[in-house]
């Protein structure tokens, strides 16, 4: 059964081409379009439902929400936002230089034959579920780091970061940030490795021909050419670090304060970890407060990711790769 498309059915001149639209085509393109629209609706639903469920917590009387302990919602959520940003920033300080080093090692230093395998090994790090990182961080890493925290507290306590007293369990914000760093490493590495591999070979050879050493070639060619990619890789890693839940919830012993101290037992919590820890026992308006804090996390990661995508897209318009 065939059907004429609306416009072509008024077939006035014999030379006009008849466009045949089959029902199969119509169903197929319709469902494909519908699926695409569904994704947009779903994202709207995510923000809509979170707003709907989160809003009561912001407007309600703080005394009705036991989590807030009589304070306003913003006083409660402030330290959590600080902890989220602080832990992610610490993780990035550790992970970013390391990841760039690893990416350069794989793209420019490792022998070509093993480079792909090494890339897989780093990708394996990304495949490990976050709950396993949390378990490893809480049971293995935290006790292993504890002696060095004691040492830091004894010797470097004049710095506000190491003011002490050192945590007895090692479950500090620094440990959590280190676990986060391990988790975002493969993301930053994977993206920047791809960017470094796309450096035009002619530029590299030209640099060598001018007498540059390998490092000088990297500094003057590979890094400037890949700058946009490096920045967006960092932003993607930051987005992951901001939203990571379990690794922080299982490693950190949090009290919900604002503190720059990295090694004490009094640590700020993060939004995601706080939701994971409080949600199972929450009831009534407490749930709405937790959802509202999730909404704030959503907004933060949305901004970070949009900026990353914007940088990538802006760059791809005048990239030589396509």
């Amino acid at each position, binding site marked *: 059964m065939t059907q004429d498309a609306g416009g072509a059915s008024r077939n006035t001149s014999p030379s006009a081409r008849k466009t045949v639209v089959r029902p199969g085509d119509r169903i197929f*393109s319709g469902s494909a379009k519908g*699926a695409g629209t569904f994704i947009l609706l779903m994202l709207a639903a*995510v923000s809509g439902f979170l707003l709907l469920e989160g809003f009561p917590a912001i407007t309600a009387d703080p005394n009705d929400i036991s989590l807030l302990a009589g304070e306003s919602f913003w006083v409660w959520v402030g330290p959590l936002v600080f902890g989220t940003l602080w832990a992610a920033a610490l993780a990035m300080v550790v992970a970013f230089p*390391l990841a760039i080093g690893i990416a350069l090692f794989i793209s420019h230093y490792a022998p070509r034959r093993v480079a792909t395998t090494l890339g897989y090994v780093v990708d394996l790090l990304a495949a490990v*579920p976050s709950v396993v990182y949390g378990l490893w961080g809480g049971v293995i890493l935290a006790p292993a780091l504890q002696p060095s925290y004691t040492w830091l507290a004894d010797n470097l306590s004049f710095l506000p970061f190491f003011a002490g007293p050192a945590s007895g369990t090692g479950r500090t914000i620094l440990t959590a940030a280190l676990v986060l760093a391990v988790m975002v490493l493969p993301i930053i590495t994977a993206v920047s490795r791809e960017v470094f591999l796309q450096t035009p070979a002619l530029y590299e050879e030209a640099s060598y021909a001018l007498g540059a050493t390998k*490092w000088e070639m990297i500094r003057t060619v590979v890094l400037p050419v890949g700058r946009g990619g490096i920045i967006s890789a960092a932003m993607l890693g930051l987005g992951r670090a901001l939203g990571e839940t379990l690794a922080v919830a299982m490693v950190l012993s949090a009290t919900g304060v604002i503190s720059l101290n990295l090694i004490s037992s009094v640590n700020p919590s993060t939004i995601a970890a706080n*939701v994971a820890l409080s949600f199972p026992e929450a009831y009534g308006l407490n749930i709405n407060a937790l959802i509202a804090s999730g909404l704030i996390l959503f907004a933060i990661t949305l901004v970070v990711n949009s900026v990353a*995508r914007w940088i990538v897209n802006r760059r791809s318009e005048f990239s030589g790769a396509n």
Partner: protein
Amino acid sequence: MSLARPGAPRPNAFAAGKLNSQVPSLLLVGGLALSWALYTFSAPEDEDYQVNLILVALTGIVFFTLGLVAVSLRVEGRRKAVDRLATVLFTLSFLIALTPLISLIITVVSRGAIRFDGDFFTLSMRNVVGDGGGAAHAIVGTVIMTLAAGLISVPIGLLTSIYIVEYGAGKRLTRWITFFVDVMTGIPSIVAGLFAYALFEILLGPGTRVGISGSAALAVLMIPIVVRSSEEMLRLVPNELREASYALGVPKWLTIVKVVLPTSIAGITTGIMLAIARVMGETAPLLIAAGFSNNFNFNIFDDRMQSLPNFVYYSYIAQGSVPEAYLNRAWAGALTLIVIVMVLNIGARLIARFFAPKLGR
């Protein structure tokens, strides 16, 4: 370098000093030996004192780096010395990244093996206090919820990527979808859980925690991954194939079903398997949306459902009267999870390698 004294012959830039290729390895051995000697001989007089091998290695590497840079500076000049320093640092950063991976794998395998037994895969945690019990209920829950999430997200994701590549090129809707799929990739997993909870709270009343809610949360995380990977694979199909099909009078939808999809099916399958592996390890959304349970539950539409990642999390967070038993179960669960995820990952890569279409390049 202005070392040339008046009267001395001017150094030849082309035959300038170059280190013998064995010098770096000799320096490495020397640095490690020096550091070991330092720690051994400065050790306090204590029977229990053991030399910390990690500290020895770290100090040795510092000695090696300093020595290499100093020697290179003396013989080869500043530029070469900086180059050598960069090489050492980049190699080191790779080795540093391997350390947590190796430590993690060794721990998970050695501790997970303790409870990696028959009971673990056949029993639930019903009425278990202390020793014994297993994670069979959690494995069942993970499989059911992941399959349901796949059933939701694979058709939607695949159809969306078909729309983006085949129908919507250059349209405004396509640009919107691409942008918002990118945005969805960045949704924190716990936010997906909160969304599913809020959705089902509105649909089914407050406090609802059911398996399908967990699946919905996983689907929110899975759809963008499926869309992105399938889109890339569909774009790899050469346009000549489509045009040849049109030239034979095949309608567009049949071209997609019979030509485009079979050509890219290996890549699409790989992407879907990687997406499944990714969401299978998600804990936070299921913690919020599906809750905990100690019992078997095969009905996705009723009651709470345990999952493997949550089993690990809960065993760790709520260690009961015999902490050792709970921790051992957690490690065994972690080992099971890693094995499943790795099998999916490796399987996906094998499919990509062996079933990829021969494009004649």
